[in-house]
């Protein structure tokens, strides 16, 4: 008994185990156990847009920005599931915005057509642009996605193409903040639950396998670059949508759509919320964006603050808030002396 060391043991709560199968719906308590976290996510998002009279248009707009960041973060998270680290979500965002501006202003299409069209065509163009990089491993994807939107921004600024620093204005308006919020909330739900479902299918399994070990996937008879391209296309959709939608919201799109903020915010949101779960992306965005608004009085020091938060999460709590909370909800922990384990 000289050196008894302890290890932390995690055991599923009884209720977690019981609610794993279909019979959970037979008991109210267990149904509530399953529903509670989901409602915690859904109810505030559905109720918030109705509270405009109480909290004012300013915070409703903050809410809208949080939804934009959510979509960009969802996109980021899907890319990360295939092992692609994007440092330039602004690329998708900006492309979506400029595409819808073109469709709306030069072809005169209404937002109901121009936004979906810009979403799909923007995602296709981004996928084509990035396709050559997909054959390469490592941080290459990150370097390229980081550089392209920033270079685009400098190009637009210097050469005055695409409306230059002024941007393209006069886009067709959307029907009003409440409707806009509900559309975005709906899209965010489709994104979160859809992607969670997708990544659990056999198809999603193949995508995750590519991140683990692309060589073995290829040896399994699967065209890795082609699957990566599909993932990029799917991931680009929510982001180009967000860009197109916001362009119509402000009725203007400018080169700031390619700015670093739209790359850093979603990245930070996922890291805070926890990568790989999609719900974490949503959670992170709704922690980060309001936080960043309240820190606005500190000027650029707030950027320093969330860089530090980012660091703390990356180094100290890489699983993120969502997985942390999920674990606490589903399991209890206790310390077990190592010898007791050995005897068993």
């Amino acid at each position, binding site marked *: 008994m000289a050196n008894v060391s302890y290890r932390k043991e995690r055991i599923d709560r009884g209720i977690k185990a019981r609610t794993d199968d279909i019979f959970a719906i037979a008991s109210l308590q267990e149904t509530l156990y399953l529903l509670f976290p989901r409602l915690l996510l859904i109810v505030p998002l559905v109720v918030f847009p109705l509270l405009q009279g109480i909290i004012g248009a300013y915070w409703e707009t903050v809410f809208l920005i949080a939804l934009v960041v959510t979509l960009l973060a969802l996109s980021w998270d899907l890319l990360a599931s295939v092992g692609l680290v994007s440092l330039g979500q602004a690329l998708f965002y900006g492309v979506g915005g400029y595409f819808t501006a073109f469709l709306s202003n030069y072809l005169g299409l209404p937002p109901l057509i121009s936004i979906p069209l810009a979403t799909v065509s923007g995602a296709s163009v981004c996928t084509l642009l990035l396709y050559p990089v997909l054959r390469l491993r490592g941080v290459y994807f990150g370097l390229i996605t980081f550089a392209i939107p920033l270079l685009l921004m400098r190009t637009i600024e210097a050469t005055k193409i695409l409306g230059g620093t002024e941007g393209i204005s006069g886009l067709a308006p959307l029907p009003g903040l409440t409707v806009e919020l509900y559309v975005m909330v709906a899209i965010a739900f489709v994104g979160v639950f859809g992607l969670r479902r997708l990544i659990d299918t*056999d*198809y999603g*399994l*193949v995508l*995750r*396998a590519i991140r*683990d*070990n692309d*060589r*073995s*996937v*290829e*040896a*399994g*008879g*699967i*065209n*890795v670059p082609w699957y990566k391209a599909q993932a990029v296309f799917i991931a680009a959709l929510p982001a180009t949508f967000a860009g197109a939608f916001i362009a119509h919201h402000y009725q203007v799109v400018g080169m700031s759509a390619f700015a670093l903020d739209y790359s850093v915010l979603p990245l930070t949101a996922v890291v805070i919320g926890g990568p790989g779960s999609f719900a974490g992306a949503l959670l992170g965005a709704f922690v980060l964006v309001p936080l960043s608004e309240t820190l606005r009085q500190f000027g650029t020091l707030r950027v320093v603050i969330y860089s530090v938060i980012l660091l703390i999460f990356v180094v100290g709590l890489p699983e993120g808030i969502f997985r942390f909370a999920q674990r606490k909800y589903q399991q209890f922990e206790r310390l077990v002396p190592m010898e007791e384990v050995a005897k068993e």
Partner: protein
Amino acid sequence: MKQQPILKVADLSKSFGGVHAVNGVGFELQPGETLGIIGPNGSGKSTLINLITGFVKPDSGKVIFRGQDITGAPPFKIVTSGIARSFQMARSFSSMPVYKNLIVPLYSARARKLKGGQYGDRDETAIHLLEEVGFERDSSVPYKLAGSLPHGYVKRLELARCLALDPEIIILDELFSGMSMSEVASILPLLERINEEGKTLIMVEHRLRELFRVVNRAIVLNFGTKIAEGTPEEVVAVQEVRDAYLGSETEDA
């Protein structure tokens, strides 16, 4: 009267930064044959496998599979046409359960045409395949995270991945390395059975005694060149082979 060879490798060469890893190697393989590729470390065995399976593009030479030129085709295409391989440095998809590892090959275009490769059948096929390569039935091992598997099991998982594709040729790159004696002994009958089912086997191996129980022909590589070819007995008898490989092997042992 000879049949049409199933695989014909002709004059294959590849050099890395001036070093000839594989230099003008060629051989033919009849359907249902079992071929061993042996040679000292760094003699180009793994590179030869990589060249055949498309993971490395050859500088020159040809690989003909069932009369079709597959030289330099992308690896997944070669797999789809019917050549599966395992890796010497085997790695699993560590973040998913063991049996889910096999969903990946079962999802490929080739496996989806097979029985058991359809949606809904794949989990069961996967468990069945694991059992076939020696994972105990009813044990919890197939449901554990693949990252926690011991090395010998990862190797067997590699073999199961090949079998999932129902290929015509299976290339096993040092399957036995890292396996215990008893593990090897339990795999040997499986390999014999696979061969009896008509599959062609190519095995790169260091453990000659076990290898020669499976293969009926062997080629020997040294410094990227083929120095001998023939039955195990013939190959071992060649003096050059003894000098290059077997001599040092016995000294080590």
